């Protein structure tokens, strides 16, 4: 697990009261966290704040897994 994936999973678990130990990079984060679009926007805000980056939400199209989201963060960092 990369450092970004680890931090992303920690943040997501904290935001949505999930157990970080049960989350893995390959999981679909919508399914794993049981969230919908509006909560995904909250997560996006948390990530932008945490990593001090901007992620245009159109770049999240087709991004489903924690790993893919972490890669997107790394690309913008």
């Amino acid at each position, binding site marked *: 697990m990369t450092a970004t994936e680890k931090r992303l999973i920690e943040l997501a678990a904290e935001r949505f009261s999930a157990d970080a130990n049960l989350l893995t990079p390959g999981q679909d984060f*919508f399914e794993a966290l049981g*969230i*919908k*679009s*509006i909560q*995904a*926007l*909250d997560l*996006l*805000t948390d990530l*932008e*704040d945490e990593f001090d980056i*901007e992620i*245009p*939400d*159109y770049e*999240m*199209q087709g991004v489903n897994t924690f790993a893919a989201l972490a890669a997107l963060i790394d690309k913008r960092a």
Partner: protein
Amino acid sequence: MVEWMLQNGIWEVKMSAPPCNEIGLEMLSALESFVGEAEASDAHSVIIYSGLESGFSAGADLKSLYSEVSGGWDEAKRGQLSDFLSRIHSVFNRLDMLPQTVICSIHRVCFGGGFELALCGDIRVAEKTARFAFPELRLGIIPCFGGIPRLERDIGNAMVRDLLLTGRSIRATKAAEIGLVTHVVPRGEGLAAARAVANQTGKFDPEARRSCKQFLKLLPTERLEEEKRVALRLFQSDVVINALKKFVESDDVRPYLP
């Protein structure tokens, strides 16, 4: 769904129409009633906020719009849409020009028509959770509640083009960087911060405060009329009906992501 009360010179307007304060005929009528009362009052401030956890407002009531136009456009429907937009423009213009200082407290979703409502305010307070977007181009239209001229009035045109032409959403801190909001506060603190702003503005001489607002904040009348004309022309396309159908019938967990 929309309640307002006057206390210590401050009107507090609370929107609570689930799922996320969609703006349709009911919301429009409520805003018209409120603005009439506010215009006739000697209050110093107005605070507009949402009582819903989901956010400030997700914009126009697209479900109602789709149910009206799903069978296709005809002269009567075009007339109804034109009347609706005229009423929205009228009440938003009156809200924009109220003698009071209008403060919008915004959290989470502030999209489309909801963003346009927030742009009528004089001072915008955003909780860190707030996100702002104009996703209208996804539907084959442009913002049509006066949002573009008001956005142009408040921020630089490069950012206006970015927001409109990509439909992307931006967070509160970015909104502050570009001058769209002037207070960013922690989650759950928006209303308290808005009340502090209202109490501060209320200390000033009423005539000086009103004159200052009148001098600073002009209504971009011609651009508002032009926006309405362009929107009405775009609305008549089948592209809009198909896009509305997709939006309304979608069970995708991520419809807010453009």
